[in-house]
């Protein structure tokens, strides 16, 4: 059984981002980029399924500019067998990425597609669901446990108010939540080995997909800042302030 894992190159989660003064976007010049943390969890899950003998091949796919090949090399260092870069400098939105991934699915015929539940830059939480819709297959989002048996995936999902378990027919799309697993670190030998794993390049045109953005971003601004608060010396003062100043108690 083959799996595709979609990985996105995003601003590293530790970076404190800056909004550009002209409101056109975020300052990305010289900023550290990494694999989206939820996608690391997706790669880890695929590699673990391969180690258990459930999967025979794990293909990492990334869409975006040429620099995304670094993200694919990271995925291969973690255990993916090969990479596919769908290269474009056009701004990609979830619907466009879902269409690209569907076209890749048609070529690769995977039984499982793993994605992170959301990317930490656009915070959309859409691509996996959209891909499942376009491919006409089942989806299991926000997964915290995945078991594959008898041609189906049994997936426990993190939902409002608790956990829910679904059984979905394969092929299916699964999106990962934080607590699915703890991703491993890539070892130096594996980083070296990843450099010689195959990496194929495609373009949206070769896949026959129109990725023109549907949403236009008119501006990006800083959120309103909270006004600085005060430090109180003790609990009695805290209670007094909450009662008499904030009038909240």
């Amino acid at each position, binding site marked *: 059984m083959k799996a595709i894992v979609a990985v996105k190159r995003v601003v590293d989660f530790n970076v404190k981002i800056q909004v550009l003064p002209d409101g056109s976007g*975020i300052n990305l010049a010289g900023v550290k980029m990494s694999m989206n943390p939820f996608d690391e969890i997706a790669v880890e899950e695929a590699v673990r399924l391969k180690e258990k003998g459930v999967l025979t091949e794990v293909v990492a796919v990334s869409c975006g500019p040429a620099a995304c090949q670094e993200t694919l090399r990271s995925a291969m260092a973690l255990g993916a067998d090969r990479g596919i870069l769908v290269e474009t400098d056009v701004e990609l939105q979830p619907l466009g990425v879902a269409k690209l991934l569907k076209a890749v699915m048609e070529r690769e015929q995977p039984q499982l597609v793993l994605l992170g539940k959301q990317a930490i830059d656009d915070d959309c939480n859409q691509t996996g669901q959209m891909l499942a819709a376009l491919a006409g297959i089942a989806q299991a989002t926000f997964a915290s446990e995945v078991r594959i048996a008898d041609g189906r995936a049994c997936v426990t999902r993190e939902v409002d108010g*608790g956990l829910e378990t679904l059984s979905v027919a394969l092929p299916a799309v699964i999106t990962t939540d934080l607590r699915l697993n703890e991703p491993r670190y890539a070892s130096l030998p594996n980083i070296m080995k990843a450099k010689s794993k195959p990496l194929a390049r495609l373009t949206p045109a070769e896949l026959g997909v129109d990725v023109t953005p549907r949403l236009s971003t008119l501006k990006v601004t800083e959120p309103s800042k*909270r006004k600085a608060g005060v430090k*109180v010396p003790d609990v009695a003062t805290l209670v007094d302030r909450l009662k008499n100043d904030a009038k909240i108690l």
Partner: protein
Amino acid sequence: MTAFACALVVAYHEGESIHPTTRHAVTAASQCGDDVHVLVAGDGCAEAARAAAAIAGVSRVLHADAPSLANGLAENHAALVWALAQGYSHVFFSASSYGKNVAPRVAALLDVAQVSDIIRVLDAHTFERPIYAGNAIATVRSDDAIKVATVRATGFPAAPAEGGTASIESVAPVGDTGLSAFVSRAAARTDRPDLGSARVVVSGGRALGSEETFLSVLVPLADKLGGALGASRAAVDAGYAPNDWQVGQTGKIVAPELYIACGISGAIQHQAGMKDSKVIVAINKDPDAPIFDIADYGLVADLFDAVPQLVASL
């Protein structure tokens, strides 16, 4: 083209009652359409349909009832919403785990973009939404014929639960896609207020040290204030609190009247989930913890001393 804009809100409900986040989505929808309809889809959800009809500002309730619509399965629900969506200018969902699961599937079936987590409606095509864990606000415009969006509850007041007199109309459910099946649910049993809509939230971090101390220290304070319990990702990962208590970019987004952060450093990820609270209180030993940058009232103290004192003085 319809003569006038009509918005459809897809209700998140529990069979008998409508989840409060749905009423926030109704408010957002009423800012986009002249008319607001609500779809209540499920298995045995007549009671929820009646509750939806009572929401102020709703003119019509579409009620779809069938076994295939039980448990909110995305494949069946998205197929139903897709079939009904033509003729609507907007299809809104609450940004609940239900809405986030179904809305993108509907948008892709309609071949339109989806706008996630809107916090403001500028006009019927233009919305504000947070990106980068709430560290930036993007203004986005959609020119698609049908705008599909999820609505962040903290961005809009809830439409009143009473006062509406909408008609209820049965709509034919679509067949079961057979792609997915519900197996089981492990509900976090609690008699506390819902974290997403509580007036007071008492939240704990890794400093609580264990599940036992998390509960023994924070429960009395939450009880005293009639509040919900929340947790940082660190506390959830350490097993001190269940997953669905997590407040932050990847957990729940809350904006209560009062948020009390106990032993939480205040990472960007956590702040993304609570910085719109009306009053923030931080209790932390470390005077340099980033939580103090956004707290209205900060107390530098050992929470194991301060929280019981606070309980005693309330």
